[in-house]
């Protein structure tokens, strides 16, 4: 699919999420803009606490009450009859967080898988109950056509019955590769292994055929072989259901595997965005470069692993100018610590928030030297 024909599903424009806590204001997300397209996978990477999960929650409009959300999050609802036209644009950030509209979207159109599958199921209910609950809330069976003589084919919809929901639950468990699904449907969460629980979570999320699956570090708690199975499963389901995935992780290997486009976040700010190959082959932002540099290579023995110098700054006391400058190898004194970089398109479809690629500010000679060096190294 070329970029022109891509079909936007959720667009996020200039998203800010601020938390007013006792020690000051935390800008958990500070100006994130990206689009999620139908049938594609957007990866979001960054260190812990850089606002990845908050971004996901903002899309679901599930930011805790203390948080303040500004910016635009738009969801484009398509008609279900297959004509493919967009019938509704819903501003998710403006919906009532407990209202009918967002509750239809949550689970129905946008489903989410959480970081810890272990604790994401209510311990008093079986695996099947969770799927049946989601199915009951969001899936409707088309019954016989009524009113055919009136010229319009009105499809009468009815909620699924208990037996049908159970059938769907078993079918979903089978699809996510849980052996013995007819029995496992009655298992309690504590009777399932970690991988199985994560599969059940995916089954719950997929049971309503969502348009977008937000996967918030879904494989963090799993071992590598299960991780690979889960990724394969998600990709397979994405193909069959034309579902978009927003994949949040700090695991670069996983993201390279699954994502079409990648957003890199640092301290709540979107620092780079491009398609996967460009990010890995030709990273622009020093932070991305540092992140990629810190992956240990298999078959190579080093005395010391590469790390990013310095510490993650305190959210209450962010550095002036570019927030990454105290740790940046390409730090330009007199520039990076004074000027907040704008988000600029540095190559075709490749955006970065870095003063190296921003020519409109007066440059010191030191800055010029560092920049030349960086460009030469590229």
């Amino acid at each position, binding site marked *: 699919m070329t970029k022109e024909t891509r079909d936007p599903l959720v667009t996020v424009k200039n998203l800010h999420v601020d938390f007013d806590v006792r020690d000051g204001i935390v800008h958990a997300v500070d100006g994130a803009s990206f689009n999620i397209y139908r049938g594609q996978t957007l990866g979001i990477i960054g260190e812990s606490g850089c606002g990845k999960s908050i971004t996901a929650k903002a899309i*679901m409009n*599930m930011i805790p009450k203390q948080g303040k959300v500004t910016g635009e999050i738009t969801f484009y609802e398509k008609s279900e009859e297959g004509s493919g036209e967009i019938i509704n644009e819903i501003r998710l950030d403006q919906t009532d967080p*407990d209202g009918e509209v*967002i*509750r*239809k*979207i*949550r*689970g*129905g159109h946008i*489903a*989410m898988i*959480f*970081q*810890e599958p272990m*604790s*994401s*199921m*209510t*311990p*008093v*209910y079986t695996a099947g109950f969770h799927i049946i*609950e*989601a199915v009951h*809330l*969001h899936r409707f069976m088309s019954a016989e056509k009524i009113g055919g003589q009136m010229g319009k084919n009105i499809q009468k919809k009815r909620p699924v019955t208990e037996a049908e929901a159970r059938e769907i639950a078993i079918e979903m468990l089978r699809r996510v590769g849980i052996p013995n699904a007819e*029995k*496992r449907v*009655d*298992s*309690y969460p504590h*009777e399932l292994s970690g991988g199985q629980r994560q599969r059940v*979570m995916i089954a*719950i*999320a997929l049971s*309503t055929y969502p348009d977008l699956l937000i996967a918030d570090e879904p494989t963090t708690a799993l071992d590598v072989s299960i991780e690979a199975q889960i990724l394969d499963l998600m990709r397979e389901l994405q193909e069959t259901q034309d579902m978009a995935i927003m994949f949040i992780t700090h695991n670069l290997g996983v993201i390279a595997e699954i994502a079409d486009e990648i957003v890199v976040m640092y301290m709540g700010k979107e620092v780079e965005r491009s398609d996967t190959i460009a990010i890995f082959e030709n990273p622009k932002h020093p932070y991305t470069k540092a992140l990629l540099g810190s992956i240990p290579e298999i078959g190579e023995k080093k005395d010391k692993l590469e790390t990013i110098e310095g510490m993650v700054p305190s959210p209450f006391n962010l550095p002036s100018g570019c927030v990454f400058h105290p740790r940046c190898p390409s730090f330009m004194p007199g520039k990076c610590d004074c000027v907040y970089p704008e988000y600029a398109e540095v190559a075709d479809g490749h955006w970065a928030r870095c003063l190296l690629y921003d020519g409109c500010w007066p440059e010191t000679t030191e800055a010029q030297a560092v920049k030349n060096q960086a460009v030469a190294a590229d």
Partner: protein
Amino acid sequence: MSEEIQNSNVKQKNDKNKVSQSYWSLVWWKFRKNKLAVVGAIILAFYYITCVFFAEFFAPYPKDLESDYLEARPTYFQFRDSEGNWFLRPFVYALDEQIDMATRTRTYVYNTTVKYPIYFFVKGEPYKLLGFIPAETHFFGTDPETPDAKVFLMGTDRLGRDQFSRLLYGGRISLFIGLFSVIVFLFIGVSLGAASGYYGGATDIIVMRITEFLSAFPQEPLFLALGAAVPVTWPSPRVFFMVTILLALIQWGGLARQVRGLVLSGREEQYVLAAQSFGASDRRIIFKHLIPATMSHVIVIATLKIPGMILLETALSFLGLGLVPPTVSWGTLLQNANTVRAIRFAPWYLFVIPFILFSIMAYNMLGDGLRDAMDPYSK
């Protein structure tokens, strides 16, 4: 050995192909092993059958039937007469009235020459079983052909009413009031506690301040004041419901606090977030995900609360501020025993005490057993 394994496999297969045991079957399995709790449960079942459901059947007389024997001593079942003969069928002696001219008191002595045999499943006063099935069979009684024959297992009161029958009828009210007020208590405590824990903020502050206000008040005087406010002219069923609700209203605070705590910690669990992300409404999350998680705790509190409610009702009725005669409850029956004269001359009024005592003990035994069985962390 292998045969044994095979047998157990077959057994498992027959068990509806279940993968594992549910929480409740584990609870039942653990509960069954606690002998004391099982005994408590059996005693309670016995109480509820004889008092609450089938008091009319087990009581030989209706609760208001006044006989000619005033404050008569109990006529116990006898198996051996004064001549030393043994009988398989129990009998009771007739009572003869004697007036002591010096003290001018009426006493009864056994007339050992007249024996009334006891029959089981005899015809007696007609009644409606469970309130709608007309019947006239009583569990035991004297021969209906001889109207003089009376059996007072636990004596009679000042108006000649059979104390044993009245104890059964009184148990109905007292046991029912305990159960019913605990249901009201659960309803108020759980819903307010859950709302307070889930929503937090202003709801939490208001609910918690009310519970603090209630717990700061000395409970008995508060109830006395509320009980005194119930109009005396009200019909007894209405007073009964009023007392029930009052009992629940002044007690729910502690439960609300505990449920709030449980919900507060449950709210932070990821499964609540997950439920939210699948479009579940607040109400659904509270009632389907949070409250069930608190249930094992709540059931135990409720079971241990019932005896407290029964005792409170008894105490208040004894003081004349809860239920009042003609309503029959253990509390109003205990009122008969509130003078030294009654204890000196009619000690059978005290038969109500073992009735109360055993029911309270049974509830406590059951509650302790349930707590052990339902605690998922106990080994």
